Every structure is written in C-alpha cells, then in structure tokens.
C-alpha cells in the first residue's frame, strides 16, 4: 500500500520553515535515509521559493506539497496556480564561463536538478502547475533489506 502525505501553505517566504518541517517529518515517517534529508529540503526550498517569488510574483496563493514512497523511489510533488513555468526547460548554466560574467539566474533550478534524480513538469487537468521531484534509493538500507527478506519468504 502506498502512503501519501500532503501539506499546503500560502505563498509567503515566511512559510518556508513550515515546509522544511513537513519535509523532514514526512521523510522520517517514510523511512528515508536521514543523510538525504538535507538534499530534499534544499531542493524543495528552491522550488517553493521560486513559486512564491516568481510564480505568484509575491502576490500570494497556495503551494501544495505531496510526498510519496513508490517502490524504491521518493516522489515529491509541488502544485500551484501561479504563472505557468516549466523549470525543466531552463538551460543549464554555462559553468565554464568566467564567474565575473556569468548570469546567476536559474541557479536554484539547476541546483534542484543536480540534487534530484529526475524533475518533471506538467499542467494538471485542473490547470495547476505540477512539478515532481524524484529521488531514488533514499530508503534506509537496513529497512530495504528487511523488506526484501520478507518478500523472499
């Protein structure tokens, strides 16, 4: 059986700590390796901050987050009704250009993609932006082993 945890906040940067708390607590409940939690937190924070500042242009709205464990993958979905934006189309920054000239926009998006194994975007049937962050192999290996053993019996 799959368990899905959901949470929603209004689009205000002051709510980022509440999102952190949700990610941390849910990751623990799902048995995610604690060493990965900081990565998840950073990725979710970058996405949520982008939605709040650019998607809603600081005018507020709702940001919904869902976390779900599916087989060996952790899925984190963020939904909003701000300006449609597909971060997966943002070009990767040119890491070889001199820092003095480099445009620093899009760094949060790039960082998110580096931290996660997969990032996908779609517009839902209800017209929401939905960004899905996927991380593989994040579950505590001791639990994974016991799960595998249970299935072998």
């Amino acid at each position, binding site marked *: 059986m799959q368990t899905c945890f959901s949470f929603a906040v209004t689009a205000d940067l002051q709510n*980022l700590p509440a999102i952190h708390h949700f990610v941390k607590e849910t990751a623990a409940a799902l048995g995610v390796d604690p060493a990965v939690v900081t990565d998840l937190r*950073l990725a979710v*924070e*970058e996405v949520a901050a982008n939605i709040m500042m650019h998607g809603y242009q600081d005018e507020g709205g709702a940001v919904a987050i869902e976390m779900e464990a599916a087989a060996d993958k952790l899925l984190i979905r963020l939904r909003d009704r701000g300006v449609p934006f597909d971060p997966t189309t943002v070009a990767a*920054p040119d890491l070889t250009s001199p*820092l003095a000239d480099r445009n620093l926009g899009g760094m949060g998006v*790039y*960082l998110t993609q580096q931290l996660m194994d997969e990032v996908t975007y779609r517009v839902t049937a209800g017209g929401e932006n939905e960004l899905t962050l996927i991380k593989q192999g994040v579950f505590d290996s001791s639990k994974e082993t016991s799960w595998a053993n249970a299935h072998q019996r």
Partner: protein
Amino acid sequence: MTIWQKELDNQIWLVGVAGRLDQTLTPELEKTLNTLLTANQFRLIIDLSQTIYINSGGLRCLVAAWRRTHQQQGNLILFGLTPRLHEIFAMVGFDQVFTIVPTQQQAIQQFTAND
C-alpha cells in the same frame, strides 16, 4: 545563528557565518559584506566552518561580493567548508572559481604570499 567579523593584519577582514546561509542569515551577510566593500576592504576571508546549509540565495550573495573584490584586484576566499557544503559548491561549478582552502591560515597566506 550569527554573522561575525574581525579585522586581521595586512588589511584583511575575516567574516564568519555560523548557521544556515539561507533567508535567515543571507540578508545579514549581505549587509556585512556591503559595509566592508563600501569601506574599500577588498581582501575578504569567509569562515564557513560553522555553516551547516546554503541555498542558491546564499551562493549568489557570495558571488556578488566576490565580483566586487575582483573588480578592485582583491579576492574573497572561503575556508572550512564541510564536505557536504563543498559538494553544493561543486554542483554549480563554484568550487572552480572561488579560492577554497581548508584553514584560516592558508586563506591568509593566499593574500600575504602576493604582497
């Protein structure tokens, strides 16, 4: 959770970041660095040994200050990064542009060796 600063010898300033370099501390770091840069202090060393987290806003703040030091033939040198923090810098390619050294002493030598 604090930003602290200290004047060293040879016109070098040391700035420390203890805590999370995200929206909680980045505004304070930005203010501290801007004050030093406005006072024509372009030899800056940043102690990140007590920095437990950084997001893109924190990285941008450091780059902005780095640029201003370089425009004046100075530098902004980082030291004491935890392996995890170093990985974050590497993900965005910043490990190749910032001068990053293990200790404060090595950071100071980066400036004094060229004096």
